[in-house]
Structure formats: C-alpha cells, structure tokens
C-alpha cells in the first residue's frame, strides 16, 4: 500500500524523523488555515502517488495568504498524469543548503535489506544511477544484524556525504531503518534528504510503501486504507476481502491463486479477448467468498461474460460449486458464466453444479482452461 507524501511524513514522525511543520487540506480555506499554523513562507504540494509533480506545477511556494489561495485553487483538482489532486500538503518552506538521497528496500535476490544512499539528492535516483552509478552507495544489511550507527556512519563516508552533515545523516539513516523494519515498509525513501543552512538534517519528501501482510500488527494503518485511490469495483472488492484489480476488458475473471488468475488473463488475451479484472479468491475460498466475487464482477457494467477458473488445492471443488449455486440464486447475474473446475474434490463440485438445475444460458462447464477461455471470449463478443 503506497502512502501519500503527507501520510509518509506523519509515519516518519512516529519514528522521530524530522519533517516540516504542516498539514493536509482538501479546500482552499483549509489550506489557508494550515498555512497559518505552519508559518509563512509555505510550500503547497499536490498529494498524488505519481512522480513529476513539480514539473506539472503541483508544487508552489507561497509567501502570504493570497498566494496560498491562488496556488491551492490551481492545484486542487489538477490532473497530474491521470491522477486528480484531491488534497494538498501545506508545510513551512525550508531553506536548503544541500540535498541527499536515502532509501531502504528489501533486495529480493540477496534476501537482505538494501540501503541506497547518495550525496546527489533532489533528482530522480534512476537518473543519478544512469549518469554516475558510483554516486550511489548500495549497502546490504542482514535483517538479524540490523543497522548499527557505526555502519550507517561509514556508509555516509562512502557516499561522500560532507563532514558537516555526517553525524546527522547517519543518525537519520538509523531512524529511517527503524521505520522501514518496525514500521513494516516495503519501501522507505527520502528524496531529498536536506541539510539546512543551520546544520540540521530534515526529510523534505517521504515515499513510503507498506506491506499489507503486516496489517495485523498495525491497527493505525486503517486510516491509510481509507484514502487509497480505488475505483468503485475495487472498493466493493476491498469490503468483501477479495484480491481484485480493475481492468478495461469485457471478460470477468475469477480464479483461485494469483498465478492462475494471471494466467487466466494471459489466456483470455491470447484467444482474442480482454479481461475486465484480476480477481484471486485465494486459498480458503468458500461459498461466501465466491458469492462476494460474483457480486463484485456483476457490478462492472463492461462485463459480458464471466470466466471462473478453479484448480482445487486448499479450495475444495464442492465449496466452489456451492458458492456458485448460492450466488446464482442471490445475485441477478447479467452475464453468463463459463466454469472450469479441477483438482481437490472437483468431481463432487461438478456434480453439485450439474444437479443444481441452472440453465445453460447462465452457466456452462468446459474441461480445460483454454477451451473455457475461448467460450467466455466468444460470449463476450
């Protein structure tokens, strides 16, 4: 789950990472009120989860109320690469002496944490990497050793962080690492990490992505989930606890397992169709979950046919079948279902479907994934 900048900064603050005084605003009046508290001069920043805000005019300096009004009015509602700005973050403008870059991620190949640190911040780190790869220090950290201050310090020396900023940046790295690990981040990035003329180190931006698998130990994340930018179908799926991603095609997809769902999308595409969504009903799918899945698919007006692709492991065939029978009773389905069912207790499942008395215009069964995809694509034409 990606956080907005203002949420990232609030998250950083919990781990004692210094951020600018400021607040979030959804209206011009709110922006003015927040600016008063943050103290002028302030920066008005568009809150969107896409890069290149500054170039698009989404970040503006304001010296007084009139300027805040002007900029907040322009930025709120602005379209930045397809993302409509619903909120601005208004913070006290910082004086900048130097700009650095710092981030922590999990390096999946090395199975270790990865620190990336550069004395060249404030620009896209990919650009720095392309121009001068030696300007980025990459340090692997064993998750059970963690990041001691001395190690952070020597990373700063390696990255040629100037002497006057060394202690401050090293201290910041340890704090950011704590945020990354204890805060269950997939990514914790500060760009730019600034040195103020007064000598303090400060996070001027915040890019945080959270690992949703860790939600059970972070009840405070509920507020972030509430502001996620989801379409109506995705919101409904979220309520029903389903793994759903909305797409633009006409064949609604329900599969068990992420791999099978992805593969179903691929096969539909291969036989000349297009998927309306990715929907993984997961390992423990039962009648309730299948009903919910069909309700979500049914809410998508573009869907012309529904392809259910189930290969039973944890998901038992008779549960899937009961779910479909139940759903067909409960939901006024607008599109015909093609089902392919195999695996654990698949025979019992097929029998339940066959005995349920559902007309063929509503539900047909196909023996293979490819044949099921062909049938579903044909119906969607």
């Amino acid at each position: 789950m990606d956080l907005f900048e203002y949420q990232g900064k609030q998250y950083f603050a919990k781990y004692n990472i210094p951020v600018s005084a400021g607040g979030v605003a959804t209206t011009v009046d709110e922006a003015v009120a927040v600016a008063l508290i943050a103290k002028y001069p302030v920066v008005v920043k568009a809150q969107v989860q896409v890069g290149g805000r500054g170039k698009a005019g989404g970040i503006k300096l304001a010296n007084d109320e009139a300027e805040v009004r002007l900029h907040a009015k322009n930025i709120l509602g602005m379209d930045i690469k397809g993302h409509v700005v619903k909120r601005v973050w208004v913070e006290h403008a910082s004086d900048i002496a130097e700009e650095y870059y710092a981030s922590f991620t999990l390096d999946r190949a090395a199975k270790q944490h990865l620190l990336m640190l550069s004395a060249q911040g404030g620009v896209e780190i990919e650009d720095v990497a392309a121009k001068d790869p030696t300007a980025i220090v990459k340090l692997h950290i064993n998750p059970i050793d963690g990041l001691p201050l001395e190690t952070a310090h020597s990373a700063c020396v390696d990255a040629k962080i100037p002497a006057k900023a060394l202690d401050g940046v090293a201290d910041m790295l340890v704090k950011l690492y704590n945020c990354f690990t204890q805060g269950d981040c997939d990514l914790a990035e500060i760009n730019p990490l600034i040195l103020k003329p007064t000598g303090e180190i400060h996070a001027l931006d915040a890019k945080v992505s959270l690992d949703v698998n860790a939600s059970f130990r972070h009840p405070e994340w509920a507020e972030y989930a509430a502001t996620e930018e989801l379409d109506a179908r995705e919101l409904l799926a979220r309520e029903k606890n389903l793994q759903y991603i909305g797409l633009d095609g006409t064949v609604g997809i329900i599969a068990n397992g992420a791999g099978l769902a992805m593969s179903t999308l691929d096969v539909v595409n291969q036989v000349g169709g297009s998927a309306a969504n990715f929907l993984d009903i997961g390992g423990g799918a039962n009648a309730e979950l299948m009903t919910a899945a069909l309700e979500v698919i049914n809410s998508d007006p573009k869907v012309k046919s529904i392809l259910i692709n189930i290969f039973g492991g944890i998901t038992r065939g008779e549960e899937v079948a009961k779910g479909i029978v139940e759903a067909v009773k409960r939901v006024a389905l607008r599109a015909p279902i093609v089902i392919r069912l195999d695996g654990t207790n698949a025979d019992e499942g097929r029998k339940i479907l066959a005995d349920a008395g559902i007309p063929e215009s509503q539900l047909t069964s196909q023996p293979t994934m490819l044949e099921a995809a062909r049938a579903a694509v044909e119906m969607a034409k």
Partner: protein
Amino acid sequence: MAIFVDQNTKVIVQGLTGGQGRFHGLRNKAYGTQVVGGVTPGKAGQDVEGIPVFDSVADAVAATGANASFIAVPPKAAPAAILEAARAGIGFVVCITEGVPAQDEARVFATLQRDYPSTRLLGPNCPGIISPGKCNIGITAGEIAQLPSASGPNVGIVSRSGTLTYQALYELKQQGIGVSTCVGIGGDPVPGTSFVDCLAQFQADPETHAIIMIGEIGGSAEEEAAEFITNHVTKPMSAYIAGVTAPAGKKMGHAGAIVSGGKGTAQGKMDALRAAGVQIGLNPTEAGILMAEIVRTIRS
C-alpha cells in the same frame, strides 16, 4: 529417487488440530505420506484420527523420529513455528501460510542461514511438495500427480505459483508423463527455497530427466534461474511465465508479483530463459505440450 522428500520422510504437522492442518494433514496421510505426529501447544496426549499430538516440535521429534514438518498455522504464528522446527532439528520445513509479513520472512531466512544451515524451508505461502507415490506434504491434490515410471523419462516440476503448480501436474498427467518431484516454492518476496535450489537438485537427481518451470512476474528469481541453467543445467527444460498481460505497478495477488520500474516483466523473464535454452510456452498447456515433445525426443 526424488528430491527433498521420499517414502522415508517422516512428517509432523504444526497446527494439526486447526482446520487447514487437519484437512490437509489427513489428506497427506491418506496419500501414503508418513504423517507421524502433530504439534499444538497445550494439546499433548490428544490425537487426530490416530495421529498423536504433541506440545512442541522437540517432543514430537523425540517420540516419532520425524525429519520433516508441515506448517499450517496463521501468519502471526508462522515465523516462530518455522524456527521451532529448525531448533528441534527438522531438516525440511514446508510452510503453506499465506500473508506472512516480508520483514518476518527476511528475518526468518537470515536466522535459518546463520543458526540452522541444515534446515531447508519451503515457502511460506507455497502449495508444498509431492514426490508422486512416495510423499505429499502440503495442499496438492495427490491424485492429479502422475507416478514416475521406473524406466523414465520423468519430469521435475518447480513453480512459484500454487494453482499453476497443480496446472503443471495436470498437464503432464494429460500427456501421460511421470513426475519425479513437484516443488511449489511460493510467490512471496523471500522464499526459503528458490528456483536455483530446486534446479540444482533436479540436475543431480538420476530419476529426473527433464524439468518444467513455472514462473511469474516480479523480482528476478527467473533471471537468476536462467543464469544458473546456462552454467549448470544440462537436462532439457520447458517453462511458462504468468503475467504477460499484467499492468505495471499493480500487485497481482502475490506479495511478490509486481512489475515496477520496468523490472520483473514476463517478457524479460521469457527472454532470459529462452537465451538459456529453455523452451517457452505462452500458456501452461503449451508448456506441457513442449514438455511432451521433449519427453518423446528422450524416449526415441
């Protein structure tokens, strides 16, 4: 022969008294796997359809001589369960638990590497492993796995995705091709066992004559496998990569399956594997058909 597990593997189920553990543990036993015990703290002395339950893995190992563990516990409890198994001297741990935080996975993996190097973890969030006719640990429906033939050729399967693992087994069964071992490594960011670990074992296993690999978008595990294949694998291979049509920046269900910054695309992975001499199918059925051709060539 088979890799990692065979008819001599003795399995305990951590979480045997829970819904998933009971269902799949009993299925594994019915398949013929030596399921010798279960572990649920506080339930020692009970049994699940004749399988004795112990308070700890150490007690279970002492009483049964188990050398493998099947973990079916919730995500909160999985890291401790894995380390408990390792501490008790279990050599092969299969964890099917979905939803373990990546930070926990990274810590558990590093701990195993440092303190328990002789324990191999498969998963978390994996379907498990089956050596057809010998041992089935996890959630695979055993009846879809074709038994290996004594004269061969037999195929080894390694897959990052659960249901696509079954799909691969199914495709081979349709083609009448025997399977030596089928390993589902799982789709999480820090899998205990990687493609490369399995490929090395299959290459060394005399009962495995060809290998089918099922990958998916995200990360670089398939690219690492391609490099390993180039240098170390001489057995013929076919592969399928899921997620050709997956949009960038969207996590496709698995915590590990995401194309970001132009990295981890299905196309890149297919290109790397093709360059390593692997035949690529554009869907699981095609990968199965390619494997059937490979097997025909070996037979003739």
